[in-house]
Structures are given as structure tokens and as C-alpha cells.
């Protein structure tokens, strides 16, 4: 019997189960887009019948990192930019756990960019939600990796001379197997996309546009938005890498021209990292964590297996 009885249980779940009794009320500013991420995540997990005890949410640092305080589950509020390496190892250690990582655009596309690239490349079976508000909010309004060129802030007083990161294109080039963008103003689409991302067997990246009403007042509220799957103006195949890439480029460019395009941009069914690693014999078939909590587990001994070659 598994020592982890919360895992994989068939059940009906309510959104409320994912609201912590200890901090039901988030401290985000009124009008903040982060509320929408929290709500969408709760809704997605409830719709999928998840148990809060089988979910591990790993966050970085910033307003987005507070998600852990307002979403009930196992949590690991890590350090700035490092949610992905913590999260993906937890998944390898116990593939039964539903692993979600989340952080801001500075966290994921700036300081943690290297981890983003490699976690996507390796295609770990997990979901990564990036709260993209084009600003550093919690540190009070500095220019971020997704701030538009020319963005003025206390640290870029004459306006940013840098072109912003193209998060969707970066994700695709890195190897993510599910790439989508949603926006705080579109709660139904957001919940659906997050549920799809969670169900996807591979690295699912959701760039979540979250307006910052306090430090990015000039930025649009991400309305009106267009769902590219619902629009007749856009026709591309999400499983075609080239078409997806072209679409992403357009979506990223248009954001800075004031047009908000959302939806699913890429989906690939290549094997997840866990599957690949198991197929090379470098990952056990049974969840690694289980053996530590099984009194009958057999443990290999160096004396029997390794010392002979030294004698």
C-alpha cells in the first residue's frame, strides 16, 4: 500500500478546498491580476478532482510567490528564480504528486531564465505559470524582462533601451511541449488552460498576463483580448512547430502594439522527461519516494555490489 494515500484518489472536489483556512484573504492590491491566477488554479484543480494533499505548488519570490499562502496544498515557497529546479526534482522523486510551479516574469524570464530554458528543454511533466505583469511589483515598480522598450522606471529613468523577452518563442525554442497565454481578465479561459496544462504530460508553460494596477498604471488592463482559437482572423495548427512559432512572434509583437492575443499556441505529445529517463533505465519504475516508507523495502549494499572491483 502506498504511504501517500492522497495521490490518485478518485473524488469530487470543491474550489473551497483549495482556499486555506489560515489565509483565505490574499494581500494583493485591489484590482491585481494575481487574484485571477489563484482563482483559475483553484477552479482547475477542483474540476480535475485533485486533493490538496496530492498537489505541490512551488513558487519563487515576488507578489506571485505569495500564491503559496493563498492556495491550499503542499507548498514550497522557494527563492527568487528557483522554483523550477525544486519543482522538477520533487516530480522525479515522486511522480504521483501533481507539481505546479509559479512565479513572476522577473522570476522566470530574468533571474531564473536558465532554469526556465532547461526545464522546458527536459520536458518535465509539470505546469509552470508565469505571472506576467511586465514590471517588478513587490520591489516597487522597476523595469522587468517583459517591460516594453522605452519603459521608464526609477531604475531606467530615460526609458529601457532593451527589447522585451519573447516568452512564448523562448519557451518553444527551449522545448516546452505545451505553450499558452491567458489573461487575468479572462477567468474561464484561464481555468480551462490551466486544467489542460495540468493534464498535459510534459512541460506546460502558461504565460499569464496579470495587470499591476499599482506599479504599472500605464500598462493596459489586457482588454480587449482575443482568444486566437475563437477568432476567424487566426488559423494555425498548434501541433505544427513552425506555424506555432510564427503565431507566437505575432502575438508577442502585438502585445506591445496594444492588442492582446491569448490562447493555446503549441502542443506536442513527445514523451515527458520521466518517461525518457525510465526508458534509459536511469529512473525507477516505481516512485522513488515510496521505498523510504515501505518497511519491506530492500536496500542495495555497497559491500555486495561495489567493493569487489577495488580488491
Amino acid at each position: 500500500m502506498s504511504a501517500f494515500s492522497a495521490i490518485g484518489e478518485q473524488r469530487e472536489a470543491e474550489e473551497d478546498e483549495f482556499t486555506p483556512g489560515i489565509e483565505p484573504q490574499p494581500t494583493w492590491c485591489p484590482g491585481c491580476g494575481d487574484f485571477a491566477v489563484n482563482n483559475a488554479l483553484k477552479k482547475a484543480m477542483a474540476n480535475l478532482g485533485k486533493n490538496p494533499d496530492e498537489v505541490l505548488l512551488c513558487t519563487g519570490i515576488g507578489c506571485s510567490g505569495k500564491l503559496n499562502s493563498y492556495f491550499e496544498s503542499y507548498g514550497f515557497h522557494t527563492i527568487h528564480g528557483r522554483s523550477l529546479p525544486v519543482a522538477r526534482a520533487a516530480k522525479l522523486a515522486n511522480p504521483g504528486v501533481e507539481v505546479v510551479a509559479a512565479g513572476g516574469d522577473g522570476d522566470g524570464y530574468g533571474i531564473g531564465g536558465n532554469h526556465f530554458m532547461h526545464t522546458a528543454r527536459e520536458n518535465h511533466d509539470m505546469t509552470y505559470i508565469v505571472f506576467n505583469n511586465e514590471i517588478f511589483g513587490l520591489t516597487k515598480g522597476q523595469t522587468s524582462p517583459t517591460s516594453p522598450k522605452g519603459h521608464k522606471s526609477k531604475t531606467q529613468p530615460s526609458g529601457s533601451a532593451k527589447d522585451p523577452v519573447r516568452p512564448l518563442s523562448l519557451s518553444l525554442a527551449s522545448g516546452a511541449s505545451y505553450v499558452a497565454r491567458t489573461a487575468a481578465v479572462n477567468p474561464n479561459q484561464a481555468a480551462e488552460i490551466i486544467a489542460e496544462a495540468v493534464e498535459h504530460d510534459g512541460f506546460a508553460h502558461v504565460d499569464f498576463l496579470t495587470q499591476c494596477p499599482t506599479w504599472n498604471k500605464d500598462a493596459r488592463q489586457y482588454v480587449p483580448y482575443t482568444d486566437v482559437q475563437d477568432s476567424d482572423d487566426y488559423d494555425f495548427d498548434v501541433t505544427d512547430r513552425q506555424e506555432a512559432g510564427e503565431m507566437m512572434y505575432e502575438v508577442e509583437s502585438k502585445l506591445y502594439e496594444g492588442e492582446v492575443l491569448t490562447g493555446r499556441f503549441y502542443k506536442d505529445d513527445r514523451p515527458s522527461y520521466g518517461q525518457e529517463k525510465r526508458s534509459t533505465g536511469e529512473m525507477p519504475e516505481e516512485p522513488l519516494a515510496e521505498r523510504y516508507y515501505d518497511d519491506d523495502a530492500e536496500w542495495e549494499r555497497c559491500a555486495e555490489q561495489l567493493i569487489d572491483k577495488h580488491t
Partner: protein
Amino acid sequence: MTDQELIWRIAGGSGDGIDSNSRYFAKALMRSGLDVFTHRHYPSRIRGGHTYVEVRATPDGAASRGDGYNFLLALGDSFARNPSEDAYYGNEELKPLSENLDDLREGGIIVYDSGLIDDEQVEEIDLHERAEENDWHVYPVDLRGIAKEHGREIMRNNAGIGVTAALLDMDTSEYEGIMEEMWGDDILEANLAVIQDGFEQAQEFDQSHDLEMPDHDEPEEEQALVSGSDAIAYGALDAGCRFIAGYPMTPWTDVFTIMSQNLPQFGGISEQVEDEIAAAALALGASHAGVKSMSGSSGGGFALMSEPLGLAEMSETPVVLVEAMRAGPSTGMPTKPEQADLEHVLYTSQGDSSRVVLAPGDQEECYEQIRTAFELAYDYQIPALLIYDQKLQGELRNVDASFFDREPDGDAGSVVTEEQIAEAAEHHAGKFKRFQYDADEGKEGVSPRSVPGQKGGRFLATGNEHNEAGHISEDPTNRVLQMDRRLGKLESIREELDEKGNQTHHGPEEAEYGIMCWGSHQGTVFEAVDRLNDAGHSVKAIGVSDMMPYPEAEVSEFLESVDECLVVEMNATAQFRGLTQKELGRFGPKLSSLLKYNGNPFEPAEIVEGFESSINGEELAVNNMKYVPAAGD
């Protein structure tokens, strides 16, 4: 050490097979019943560059490199850069013969490959005049020619082994047996022919030397030839570690490689990742999910682990990290040993340190202390670090094979079961009290730990200060309770460590003088202590392994019992002496330092000399060490 010792140095270029040949040779000597110890010297370079390994073999215990060497097998560097008088690197082809030749003892043997090093080059270094002055016995042999005749040029090392055996009157059968285990068919045949040809040619020489194979008997017990890295990796595996994440960096790569090669058959997982920040973070993630896990690096890579290390302290995520030191600062000297990362490992990361740091002194201690590190990390939910260096990493020594006959430890430490979670103290608004102030788990400060997937056990792990359920809290009362609980664990750990007795004592119980050391040169210090006592001095030594928490009582007792103490370490700023003064605060006037930081480990004779100079108030005769007198607290 008696006269009965062979210190055989094989020298060539990187890529000439120095490492593997010396390992086979050491193993052959071990199987013959001798105790062996190897010392490696190599450049940070894939092909070429002067590299050598010394194999020291004695009938009665070898726990250190020796003083110099008495047999040189100089292959010449087959990957040498073009010799040019102006180049600062000089004639690389010749270096295996010319470099450190002054360290060859009187009466010593030189065998060089005349197929690579010609007479003109030998004249350049006045070899024959110097040989006459020092009573060296020089035997040029065309090793390359022998190798090419029976096989390939790379086999010239084995021609050198054949010559060595003939000159030392050594039976080649043990070595040939190892070849048979390594190779099959044609390659084996060619290698055996090369060995025999070398042996037969050397038998024809007019042998004028006295050196021979030390006395040996069948070993009483089966021996295993292991490096510090082998011992660390095996200790980790037997401790139940089944997850490692890392990034290559010399000398840490050794442990990472051994683990990666063996974890699949042990049912575990190894991950090579994008950088060391990720490596440490992965180790935390796997541990958080309930698996015993580790990571590690060397100086620069370990610097990147500072922040995850602090996260482990704050979130009480158990993890074991290894720091394999090399000479710094910065990139420093990547393949040379030093002990200058002690303060880095003790204090890196923001906030007050709460971690365990152990520094093993030899192969057995590597195995035992990494197991202790896992035990403490998982019982106390604290990061435990093992610090060692490039010296202990690669040097081989024979250990009783039965030493490794231990039970593995699959216990996950202070993790509770779902039944215990259900019965646990009241939950905090639905959340398990993972960071309970006053849990009585039998260990001071340790709170019950759950892992994801356990029903009812959900909590928040965070690098922020937090309340009992893990939620962020800046409440002053909670802050102090949590800080005191976390730091309080170190006191219980100190008691457990005191019981384990990781410190190693050597020499007479009562002595006038003391020598203190930590880490890898413990065996060298102990050999020097024996010689000093034989020479009429009254000296005892302690090799300290517990760096944090520091063994206050044991070291205080040692220092109280001696008049003066010399602290021997491989760094320039006396870091361990500083730690001792900080921890004990009252022995400053007794503590002087002998330091070495030129990239080469101490020889026993250097410690003897350093000690004698220090008690006689004389200047050191050599400039490769530094003496720093006592300065008070």
C-alpha cells in the same frame, strides 16, 4: 617509516595513462601484501602537461605521501607542446624526467623512455653529473620501441612496469593478473608481451642499486583500494541516498561521477543540471518529496549554492552537500589541493548559520562521516555538509574490505506516517503543524515532518520566517521561538557528535606539545608525530573532523593538556586556527600555525621541520611553508 619503503613515481603527460597504470600498480602491490598510498599531481589540461602519481608501498601502514620518492619512471610527455627556449613552459617533453628531480632520494632509481627522450635532452639537464653526485641509478630503456613492437605506443607504460619489476626483483604475476581482469584476447596478449619484454630487457642490465621490493607476506585480510571520493559515494549509497544532482567541476566531479554510475543499479536517480544553483535546488526538491538526496560542488560552484543552502536551513529541508576544495580564490588552481574554503562552507548564505559541517581525515572517515551527515540531516531536518579536498578526493589507500560490510540505512529520519499525522497535535486552520514549537520527538527542536502526497500533512515550506504551519509570519514572538528552536538543534547534534567521537587522536596520552589539524593531511601529521617522538620530542596530535558544531569539550581538553600547539593546515590565513579561537576563546597564546598553500600537500618531513623550527624559534629553512606565531585571542 622504515627503510622498507618504495615510493614509485610514474611521470608523463596528461593522456599518457599515468592514472590507470599507477592504480593497477598500486593494486598489485596491495595484493602482494603491502600497504599502499598514492599521491596525484596533474595539470588542468586534457592532453599533455606534466603529471605524475606516486605510489608509496610499505609493509606496515601507509597513510600519507612520503618524503620525495626513490623510483622514477619517466615516460616523457607524448603530448608536449613544441619545445622552445623562450616559452615559459620550457621543454615539456622532458619535464616528467626533469621536474622535481631534486626530490629523488639518494640511491634512487631513474628509468626513462629513451624512445621519447633523447641523449641530447638528457644532457640539457646534466642528468649524469647529478646522478653521480646523488648516487642515482639511471636506466634508459626504449619503452616506446617495446610497446610498438608488441602492440601500440600507449602500452609503453606497461613496458615501464616490466622494467620496474625486474629492477625491484618483483614478481609480475599480481600485475599480470590485474591486466587479465581488465583486458581480453589480443589487447591482453599484447600488454603481457610488452610487460615481459620490459622485464627481460631490464634483467640484462648491470644492476647497481640497492632498492628492492619491500618485504611482504600474503595479506591477512582482503584489502580494497579506495579513494576518498569512492568512500564518500559508497557511504552516501549505504546511507540510503538515492538522488543526486550536480554540475561538473574539479575535484567534485569524482563523487558526482561515481554516484551517477551506480545510482541506476541502486534504483536511484542522478541529474546533471544547468548550474549549481539548480543542482542544490533539485536536491532540496527531491528531499522535500521524501527522498534522501545530495548535491555538492567545489569552491566556485559551491558559491552558487549559498542561497539554496540558506533555504534548506530556513525551510528545514534535510540535504547533504559535499564541498571538494581546490586552491582558490576564484578559479585558482583547479587541480591542486588547498583547505581554504572552510570559512566559506561554515558561513556562506545570509542569516545565522544552522548547519552541520564535517571534515573527514581519511578514506574510512569519508565513508563514516557522510553516513553521519545523512543521519543528522534527516533526523534533525538540517543541511549537513561534508568538506574535503582535491588531495583526499583522488588519493588511493588500502582499507580492509570488511570495513564496508555495513547495513544500509533506508530510514527517512523524522518523517511521520499518515496515522501519526491524523493523531498529531491540533492542526492550524486545516494545516499540519510542520514547524511546531514544542513537539516532543525525542530530539531537541525537531518538529514532525510530512511529505507531499501524505493525507492531512500539507504545509508550506518557505524561505520566509513562518509560523507553525509554515505560513509567512513576522510576529516577533514567533520569530524568536522559531529561531531558537532551529538553532537549538545544534546543541543536541553536538552531543550526538561527541558520542560518535569523530576526532582522531595520535601519539602519547601525555605530551608537552600538541599538533592540531583537520581534514586530509591527518595521516601525514600523524606520521610526523611518530617521527618526532622517535627523535625524542614529546608530541601528540588531534585530527578534528567536527567543524560545526565544534567539539568544544574534546579540543579544550586536548589544548589544556599541552604547553603549546601547532595548527597545521593548507591555507594562507589559518582558518581552522581562527575557528578554534572563535569557538573556544581562550587558547590563543598557545596556538601557532604551520601553513602551506603552494598547491602541493605536506610531506611528513616538512611537518617535522616546521614543528622543530617553531619550538626552537628558528626561521623555516624552506620557503614553501609559512609559520605564524601565536598572537593571543
